């Protein structure tokens, strides 16, 4: 719509140049000369429309070419937007009539010229004759004043013809201007003078040009005459007539005339002078020839120049390629069309590299310079990193094809090698710095993101490594700096190293260049060794950096200086949870290794990484095991004393926690331990590692034992007590011990619980875990199992003993006290009315124990109660054997009743030992002598059974 807007009319204010012949390149300047090419619809110069020859440059500039524009005239530009314009300057079209040898930009009407030339060929004409006008520039009188006779009379030999030999001016004047006034004649004279002065310079030449043919004839004839004369010299007199005749025929030419005259004179002098005459003729001829040549010299010279110009143009045209080459090369370089440049250059080199022509040499030198510049440019580009491999290859190929000095591929390799090392070193420095800072300001996520962001920046399409947060790790822990470092380092290596390696490979099998079918490159095979060394250096450097970060002890072989170079990491590696990230590291290294394996790098390189990987795996395993062990040891703090019943008895959560920790660790280590590819070493093949693993695994499993032990024996110290108190509030409703007064299980109960846990662990958890170990390929699982089971068995025993001690001692101790309560005397006692109170008390105590066990771990019932019975039996037999006095009959009944009852009541738990003890105890007691006593005993026994029926059933139910 803007274009429709009406604007000011165009105004031409400047012309460059302001005048010129047709074909002049004319620059028109002004205002509002159209806002684009299409806006300008008409350009008129001196009334001639030259729109088609115009080129719109800008609203203030148009360049065009003039055609047949005549005279001073306006230059009018008309635009659609501004209408018809004006002009403050005028162009003067010059009209020149080019001669036949001149170039002209326009069509020249040559008909007039052509006519004249036709005439001139048919009949020679003098310059004055050709224009039939009067030589004095006056109107001619056509009526002759004199008759032919009169004239002949007055001027016998004269003629009024200007071109005639015997021209008589007087006759001419009489004939043509008899009536002209004197003043006019004077003017005519002046005119003639002017004319002749013009003719002096121009006349003869034009004349000769138009009569060229005649001159040629004359020349030829004269030459023939001369030849003839020379030939006939010796023959004598007869000769003289012939040339005279011949020369008389010649007519019209200056030289001819002169020659004629001379000839005539010569004739008069006679034969003596013949020789001199001939000589003269010869001279004249030579002179004429010279004159003729002089006249045409400039024309010929011009022709020569035209020819040479044409030649030069031809050459320029023919070798346009070369002359345009510098510009073409520059243009193509700008465009990035290096292929074209190379092709062109190749062609130029083949054609012109050995040229002897100075012009070509000059241009070719320029081309060479351009190419050298290009080489430098390409070289710089090549040294710029990172560059994709294909790009590098292409650049190298260009450089090789351009035949530059040196070995670009090798330089590129060396450069890239250095670059990679720098990147690795830079990565290290950066992370160490962050690490040191991070000690003060813990803001890992932002660091991490920054670092990762940075890495993305320069690695372009880096491999995306996801940080999988581990289930057993607290989310608040971000990966330690070393891990981030390793990730980045590995990533860097993965992005840069393959590039370099492939470049090297293609360099050594010469495919860098041959891919394009170019010329072969000389491959220096000695460099292969140093390339390999370079690769090894990078790999080793990488491995060392990783070692410095994770396994500093493995670098102890190196001297201090080297180690310092590899970076020293803070002691933060021991912080909690660092181990959880190690598998991540192992994964990274693995991916590096697998990449390198895919690249088919030589084995030494792989070995470096393999050993690094193996070390890292072991380190990972050790760290994880150690951490897990610590975790497990700390489990005692997490005991809730909440029982969960199953068919084996009650256990608390700790064994489950323990199991889950171990299982988690194993899961975690699964990928670390299991070899993912054949190239990896089996870490357990190492004797030392195997030993270490067994120890660690055992430690791991046994850790819980110590945990349990702590729970059992140290559990009642202040801290734990508090813990229990606090945890008591969180008890679940199904807790068996939920009563306001007794929310914490007593010492004995704890023991039972721990005992139950212990047995649960040794019976179920440990075998399970061992099974897992086995499945994951850990060595010597039996050994681990044995060691750990041993530990648990020991613990079991210890706890059991402790428990029994706790429970049975008071019970048994109460027996003797009970027996002799009230100064009881076996020898003197009343008729028994039932079992003694101590029996009941002992039974009650036993029932209490029973209840406790039953509540916590019914599985232990037999074991514990057996032990109780044993202890009771032992004690009874001891008490009986200690009875010093004799039993009275009542006493005997009483004793038998008591012992019998005890035995009967706890009969489900009896064994050979208890039976023997009871028998021993009974053996001290005298036999009942009377039926009466026996009957009494039986009665009392049955009443005891009856009385304590409920109490007794509790012992029988579970057996």
């Amino acid at each position: 719509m803007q274009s429709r807007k009406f604007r000011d009319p165009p105004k031409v204010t400047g012309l460059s140049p302001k005048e010129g012949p047709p074909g002049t390149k004319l620059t028109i300047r002004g205002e509002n000369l159209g806002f684009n090419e299409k806006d300008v619809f008409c350009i008129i110069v001196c009334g001639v429309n030259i729109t088609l020859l115009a080129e719109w440059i800008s609203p203030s500039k148009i360049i065009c070419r003039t055609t047949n524009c005549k005279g001073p005239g306006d230059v009018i530009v008309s635009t659609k937007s501004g209408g018809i314009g004006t002009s403050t300057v005028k162009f003067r079209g010059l009209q020149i009539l080019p001669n036949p040898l001149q170039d002209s930009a326009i069509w020249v009407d040559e008909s007039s010229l052509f006519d004249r030339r036709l005439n001139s060929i048919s009949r020679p004409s003098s310059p004055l004759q050709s224009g039939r006008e009067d030589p004095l520039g006056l109107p001619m009188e056509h009526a002759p004043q004199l008759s032919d006779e009169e004239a002949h009379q007055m001027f016998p030999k004269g003629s009024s013809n200007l071109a005639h030999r015997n021209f008589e001016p007087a006759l001419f004047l009489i004939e043509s201007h008899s009536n002209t006034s004197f003043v006019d004649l004077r003017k005519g004279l002046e005119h003639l003078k002017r004319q002749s002065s013009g003719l002096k310079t121009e006349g003869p030449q034009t004349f000769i040009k138009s009569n060229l043919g005649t001159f040629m004839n004359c020349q030829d004839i004269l030459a023939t005459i001369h030849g003839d004369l020379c030939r006939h010299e010796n023959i004598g007199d007869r000769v003289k007539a012939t040339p005279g005749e011949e020369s008389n025929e010649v007519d019209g030419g200056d030289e001819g005339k002169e020659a004629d005259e001379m000839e005539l004179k010569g004739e008069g002098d006679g034969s003596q002078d013949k020789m001199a005459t001939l000589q003269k003729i010869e001279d004249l001829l030579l002179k004429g020839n010279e004159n003729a040549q002089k006249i045409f010299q400039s024309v010929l010279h011009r022709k020569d120049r035209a020819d040479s110009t044409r030649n030069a143009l031809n050459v320029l045209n023919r070798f346009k390629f070369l002359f345009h080459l510098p510009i073409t090369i520059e243009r193509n370089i700008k465009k990035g069309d290096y292929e074209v440049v190379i092709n062109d250059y190749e062609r130029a080199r083949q054609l012109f590299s050995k040229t002897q022509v100075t012009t070509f040499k000059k241009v070719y030198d320029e081309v060479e310079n351009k190419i050298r510049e290009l080489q430098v440019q390409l070289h710089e580009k090549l040294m710029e990193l990172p560059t994709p491999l294909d790009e590098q290859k292409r650049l190298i190929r260009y450089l090789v094809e351009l035949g530059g000095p040196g070995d670009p591929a090798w330089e590129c390799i060396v450069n890239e090698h250095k670059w990679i090392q720098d990147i690795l070193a830079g990565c290290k420095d950066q992370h160490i710095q962050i690490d040191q800072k991070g000690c003060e300001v813990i803001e890992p996520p932002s660091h991490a993101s920054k670092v990762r962001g940075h890495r993305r920046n320069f690695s372009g399409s880096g491999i995306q490594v996801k940080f999988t947060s581990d289930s057993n790790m607290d989310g608040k822990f971000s990966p330690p700096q070393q891990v981030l470092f390793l990730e980045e380092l590995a990533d860097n290596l993965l992005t840069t190293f393959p590039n370099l390696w492939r470049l090297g490979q293609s360099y050594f099998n010469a495919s860098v260049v041959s891919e394009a079918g170019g010329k072969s490159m000389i491959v220096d095979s000695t460099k292969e060794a140093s390339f390999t060394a370079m690769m090894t250096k990078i790999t080793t450097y990488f491995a060392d950096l990783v070692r410095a970060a994770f396994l500093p002890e493995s670098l102890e072989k190196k001297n201090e200086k080297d180690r310092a170079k590899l970076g020293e990491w803070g002691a933060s590696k021991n912080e909690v949870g660092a181990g959880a990230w190690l598998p991540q590291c192992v994964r990274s290294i693995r991916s590096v290794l697998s990449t390198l394996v895919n690249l088919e790098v030589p084995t030494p390189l792989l070995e470096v990484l393999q050993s690094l990987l193996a070390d890292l795996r072991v380190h990972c395993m050790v760290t994880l095991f150690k951490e897990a062990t610590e975790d497990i040891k700390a489990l005692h703090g997490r005991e809730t004393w909440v029982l969960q019943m199953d068919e084996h008895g009650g256990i608390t959560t700790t064994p489950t926690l323990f199991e889950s920790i171990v299982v988690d660790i194993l899961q975690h280590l699964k990928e670390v331990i299991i070899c993912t590819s054949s190239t990896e070493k089996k870490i357990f093949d190492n004797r030392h590692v195997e030993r270490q693993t067994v120890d660690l695994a055992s430690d791991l499993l046994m850790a819980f034992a110590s945990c349990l032990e702590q729970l059992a024996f140290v559990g009642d110290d202040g801290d734990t007590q508090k813990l229990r108190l606090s945890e008591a509030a969180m008890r679940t409703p199904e807790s068996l011990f939920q009563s306001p007064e007794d929310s914490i299980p007593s010492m004995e109960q704890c023991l039972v619980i721990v005992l139950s846990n212990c047995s649960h662990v040794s019976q179920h958890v440990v075998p399970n875990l061992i099974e897992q170990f086995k499945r994951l390929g850990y060595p010597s699982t039996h050994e681990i199992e044995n060691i750990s089971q041993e530990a648990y068995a020991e613990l079991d025993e210890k706890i059991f003993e402790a428990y029994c001690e706790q429970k049975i001692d008071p019970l048994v101790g109460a027996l003797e006290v009970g027996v002799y309560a009230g100064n009881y005397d076996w020898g003197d006692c009343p008729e028994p009315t039932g079992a003694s109170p101590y029996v009941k008390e002992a039974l009650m105590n036993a029932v209490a124990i029973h209840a406790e066990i039953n509540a916590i771990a019914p599985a232990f019932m037999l074991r514990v109660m057996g032990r109780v019975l044993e202890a009771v039996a032992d004690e009874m037999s001891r008490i009986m054997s200690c009875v010093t006095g004799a039993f009275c009959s009542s006493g005997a009944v009483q004793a038998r009743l008591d012992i019998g009852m005890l035995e009967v009541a706890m009969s489900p738990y009896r064994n050979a030992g208890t039976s023997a003890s009871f028998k021993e105890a009974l053996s001290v007691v005298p036999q009942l002598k009377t039926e009466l006593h026996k009957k009494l005993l039986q009665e009392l026994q049955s009443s005891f059974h009856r009385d304590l029926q409920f109490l007794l059933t509790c012992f029988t139910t579970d057996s």
Partner: protein
Amino acid sequence: MSKPKSQQLPLHKVIMVGSGGVGKSALTLQFMYDEFVEDYEPTKADSYRKKVTVDGEEVQIDILDTAGQEDYAAIRDNYFRSGEGFLCVFSITEQESFATTTEFREQILRVKHDKTDDQIPFLLVGNKSDLADKRQVSEEEASERAKTWNVPYVETSAKTRENVDKVFYDLMRKIRDQKALETQKQNGKKGKNKTSEGRRKRKCIIL
């Protein structure tokens, strides 16, 4: 409409002289179109004309940009004859161009033989003042020559447009003043004659 009007405006014909490549065309184009042309293309004879305001008066300036090259020396006479004012340009970076100004000066004086030196509006212009580090012609040297000629010397830069307008306007003022002087002379002669005649007449009458 504007054509006859503009034709009525006074027209000052300025001629750029000086050897080849000193920046005559550059100065002209800078003055005319505010553009600086980097590439060098020898001029033959360019003509520019535009309306400008000098001291509040609308005038037309006609600039004839001539060829500096010796090849065109022969046709200069014609051009010079038509010129009313001259900007004689040299490049301060080229001693030779400075030397040639003398020849131009002489040629102008020869062509304008009907006028005295100080009747010809003339400015000596040292162009390319932006290329100070390549200076070959010192300011003193140039001023000295201008002094002997009794003309102003101005240093310009077609590139930075420094003093470009100044030289053209200064020259136009000079032309205007010169023209005014001439008409005054002509009129003056008549007027003087008239007045003196009148006076004489009056005196005669009185006497």
